[in-house]
């Protein structure tokens, strides 16, 4: 309970430290405004009119269905990749042989560009939801797999031995010894994969779907509508920022707190 209270009292300070991030983002907007000023609205509309367009899209309700469809696809692909990647990586990490075998395979998977997978997926799944979901899955899987593998491989053997000597119950071994360590590797991998999923899904939709943010981008591109294009890009980036800084980063801090004590 006191732990929870400590965590709760840390929230305002965490949110307040967001001002630093906001300051850098405003600096970026200033650069954007400057480029738009130098090259004109046709090349790059200014941030003000972009956000006005985005607001109009959200206010009229036109954007929400697209955002939901895209988020649904990205999350489905990501969830599948998290499940499969974590479990398989964990399993591969248990055995030296499996880890050795898995390395080159993961390198191959990482080496194939997502756009190549997308072409394959379009042939296999057509214009269905399967195409973006599969592409997201296959782009995220190796990242998570490597994380889980590394986490399992780096477990401290002395700690393991000590746990055996002290006859820790299996539940305790798992939750207090293995899990915190593995998660500290797994979590950054998940966050990494989240960013990838969000980018890949838009790319997949752009080329293969009739709905979602990617499709909306394709439409605004064909209309040469720079403002709407940038508004959709802003929507993608803002969603990612919000999820990362409001949801994942606080969890990550919590999970990785034991590292600070060590250093």
């Amino acid at each position: 309970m006191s732990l929870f209270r400590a965590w709760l009292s840390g929230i305002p300070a965490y949110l307040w430290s967001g001002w630093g991030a906001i300051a850098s983002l405003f600096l970026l907007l200033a650069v954007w405004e400057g480029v738009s000023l130098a090259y004109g609205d046709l090349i790059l509309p200014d941030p003000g009119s972009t956000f006005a367009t985005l607001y109009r899209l959200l206010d009229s309700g036109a954007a929400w269905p697209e955002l939901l469809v895209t988020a649904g696809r990205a999350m489905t692909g990501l969830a599948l990749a998290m499940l499969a990647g974590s479990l398989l990586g964990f399993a591969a990490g248990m055995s030296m042989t499996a880890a050795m075998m898995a390395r080159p395979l993961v390198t191959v998977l990482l080496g194939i560009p997502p756009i190549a997978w997308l072409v394959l997926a379009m042939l296999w799944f057509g214009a269905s939801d399967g195409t973006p979901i599969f592409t997201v899955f296959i782009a995220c899987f190796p990242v998570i797999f490597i994380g889980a593998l590394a986490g399992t491989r780096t477990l401290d053997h002395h700690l393991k031995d000590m746990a055996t000597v002290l006859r820790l119950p299996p539940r305790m071994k798992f939750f207090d010894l293995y899990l915190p360590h593995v998660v500290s590797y797994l979590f950054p991998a998940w966050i990494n994969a989240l960013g990838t999923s969000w980018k890949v899904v838009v790319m997949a939709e752009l080329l293969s779907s009739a709905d979602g943010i990617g499709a909306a981008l394709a439409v605004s591109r064909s209309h040469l509508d720079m403002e709407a294009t940038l508004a959709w890009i802003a929507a993608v980036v803002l969603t990612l920022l919000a999820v990362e800084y409001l949801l994942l980063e606080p969890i990550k801090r919590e999970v990785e707190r034991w590292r600070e004590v060590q250093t």
Partner: protein
Amino acid sequence: MLTAGLRGLFAAPLLCCGFRPFYLATALYAVLAMALWGVFFVRGWPLPPQMGGALAWHAHELIYGFAMASVAGFLLTAVPEFTASAPVQNRRLAVLFGLWLTARLTFTLAGVTGVWPAALLNLAFMVYLGWLIAPPVWRDRGRAHLSFVYALIALAALQAGYFVAAWRNEPVMPWLLAAVGVLMILIVLALSRISMRMVNAALDVRGAQAAYLARPPRRNLATFAIGLFTAIEFALPGNAVGGWLALAVAAALLNLLNDWHVGRALFSRWIFMLYSVYWLMALGYALIGLSLLGAGFAPSAGRHLLLVGALGLAVLAVMLVAGRTHSGRELDQRPWVLAAAGLVVAAALLRLLAGMSLVDVPAPRLWMLAALAWIGAFTLYAAYSWRLLTGPRPDAGSACEGPEVFTQPASQTLNARRMES
């Protein structure tokens, strides 16, 4: 006979440390310059004809008259302490103060005498001040306080630009707006030094576990953002690029406050005063940003929050703290301190209301009230500090000897405070 008289004058307690004449001048000139502006604006009394217009007089005199006097007082007191060097006293201090005084006079009469006397005396004051404080800062190990010298050089260069522009009949306001940015950087630099001591002393008094650290990365982000905004505003006046940068400054200043959230010690009067300076500065820059992005009010509303609010309160707080501790006294715990600080904040908010036309009161009336609040605050300071600044020290010190108050162990400070109350 004359030299003996002069020697006696130079040895007066008023000239034993730099803050004494300059803090007194800061307070008196705050009152005088604002009163003149008030009667000019409200009663329509004419000011002497000015280069660049009456508005330029108001801005220049409050920046290079009022604020610069406080900067001189601060530097002449802080530099000897930071660098453990000999303080500037007596004859040299009298010369420097004389330059400031004649610079004020010639500037106000510049419509009659022309630009040159005012330009020469004003710049001579800046150069001599730099001449006095730069060598010890340069010789100091690590040169940790060189940024103050850079800020002083920037202020002098901008003032030179002002006079060149005035001489050529070009717009002078951009130079003054840039000087505002340098002053804001100077406030952030100065407060980070002062706050480390004061906040930690307040924490010690409360026996708190946490320690306060003015973290350089956050401060550097804030000063970088202010500098960038100031440069862009100078190059592209009224542009939306500057608007986003001003918002970045506001966010960077609020980010700075993360260091300050140390619990209840924040609400002791001295700490809260310094803390409010950052808030006023952040709000001021936010309003300037919104105005430049087309929010429908003039940037001068936000600008006055910076100058009346942040600058006024920072000057008052530093004068209250350094003025007492460097003349060998305890911090002033009497209620007038709160009244003076409250009046400065009230002046800033009234000026803001007038600038944004938020309430249904005619703007001139709000201007008048704001000016009166400002005059009241600095009259209080001058009245309560007159003897402190002009009289001899109550202890054995003979110059600027510093604030042992803060370096005493917590228990001693507590005892001293109990005895006082």
